């Protein structure tokens, strides 16, 4: 850089940013021109984030920034200081058990080559977090920012629908268990002689 054009001492050629990625804190030195997607892939080795078009059309690079779907090719890493980021690597459990949305994509043939899948899955995770029972039209609309060139989308829509249905079933079962347990506790409490409470 030529010094005669510099008018401030705050010129940034490389800067440190603090990112919390999948619950782990990272401090990385980045150039201003590095996008979040570049930093995830090239500096942190998180290559599950796929960069497709790099101008905001394909959605493959979608990650969650503070819970919101964001195209990682359309934000610079320097802008992301102090944010919480979830990438596809952050969804499965520590023992490798897939996230229910990932499981549903597998079960419904919601992927073929897999390039677009991380973006789809993260967008779907956010959709189900904000709308637990979307219909197929809603799913289609909400996923319209992600392109897939293999599946024809039908399997993807079915996967998200299935994940929603299964999650509802799991939650219903949990409620039923809780109700049964509460009834059992109440029944056994009625059998026992009452004791003074403090």
């Amino acid at each position, binding site marked *: 850089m030529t010094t005669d054009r510099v008018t*401030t001492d705050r010129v940034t050629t490389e800067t440190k940013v603090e990112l919390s990625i999948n619950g782990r804190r990272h401090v990385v030195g980045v150039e*201003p021109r590095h*996008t979040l997607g570049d930093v995830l892939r090239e500096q942190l080795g998180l290559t599950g984030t796929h960069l497709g078009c*790099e101008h*905001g059309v394909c959605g493959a690079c979608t990650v969650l920034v503070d819970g919101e779907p*964001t195209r990682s090719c*359309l934000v610079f890493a320097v*802008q992301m200081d102090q944010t919480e980021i979830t990438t596809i690597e952050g969804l499965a459990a520590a023992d490798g058990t897939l996230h229910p949305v990932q499981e549903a994509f597998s079960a419904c043939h919601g992927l073929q080559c897999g390039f677009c899948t991380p973006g789809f899955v993260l967008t779907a995770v956010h959709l189900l977090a904000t709308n637990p029972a979307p219909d197929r039209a809603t799913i289609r609309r909400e996923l319209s920012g992600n392109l897939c060139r293999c599946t024809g989308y039908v399997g993807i829509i079915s996967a998200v629908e299935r994940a929603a249905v299964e999650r509802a079933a799991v939650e219903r079962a949990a409620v039923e268990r809780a109700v049964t347990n509460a009834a059992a506790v109440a029944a056994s409490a009625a059998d026992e002689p009452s004791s003074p409470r403090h």
Partner: protein
Amino acid sequence: MKPPPFDYIAATSVEDAVALLTDERDSRILAGGQSLLPILNLRLGSPELLIDIGRIDELGTIELSDHHLQIGAAVTQQSVLDDAGVGRRWPLLTDALRHIGHAQIRNRGTVCGSLAHNDPQAELPAVAMALGAEVVARSANGSRRVAADELFTGPFSTSLAPDELLVSVEFPAQPSGWAFQEFAVRPGDFALAGVACAFDPIHSAARVVMFGSSGCPMQATAVEEALLAGAGAGDLEQAAAATVESLDATGDIHASAASRRTLMTKLLIEAASQAHQRARTETDR
């Protein structure tokens, strides 16, 4: 592709940002970056300095009363879309926001950034003109207000000076008659044609603004007159056809100029009828 190198400064206040704009280097404001980053990634532009205004607290607020809405330069499209008060009183704006890109884009993209960028296919410049919005432009020398009508000068161009920062946009109360119509091939795609319409029968005021088909949002004055004259079906058709005849429509791989004119004719008629209908329903209450 990857962006060319540039310097980056996160401005800490509006004063700081406008002082940085006097820098000799070719500088650009970075707010949401959802239009700027594609430009940089495709190397269509290579500014020397990016001034990030995304972390300036005073630019991150939405202020609204019954008759007035002010949106700061760092406010994202999604947060305006999610604001129930805006949805109740400025449904035209909310409806237009739904058509902008996808959630991934709206979560970062800003309302003011869209105005300052003035993409010919963008929804918000047309909405700003339809509603008679004003923007506040700040420079190191002070601040001035610019009416939306005076702001948009051509494709990707505005009347803002290179050292001015668009700090906020202000919308007056929205009239009871309104409509937003747009045609895009898929949800979230750029519009091939679109119309924003605001109609106030009480004050005999109508604004019909076209976007998406030519270089800059444009008023459809003949349709406005037909709307004020009672929006007779024949009158609207005639006015829309006359308006579109003089429209310098773009022809490209997405649609021919003739297709865009046909779409625009249909959208003008639909928008004007819908705005007229809504105003009547509102008056009947």
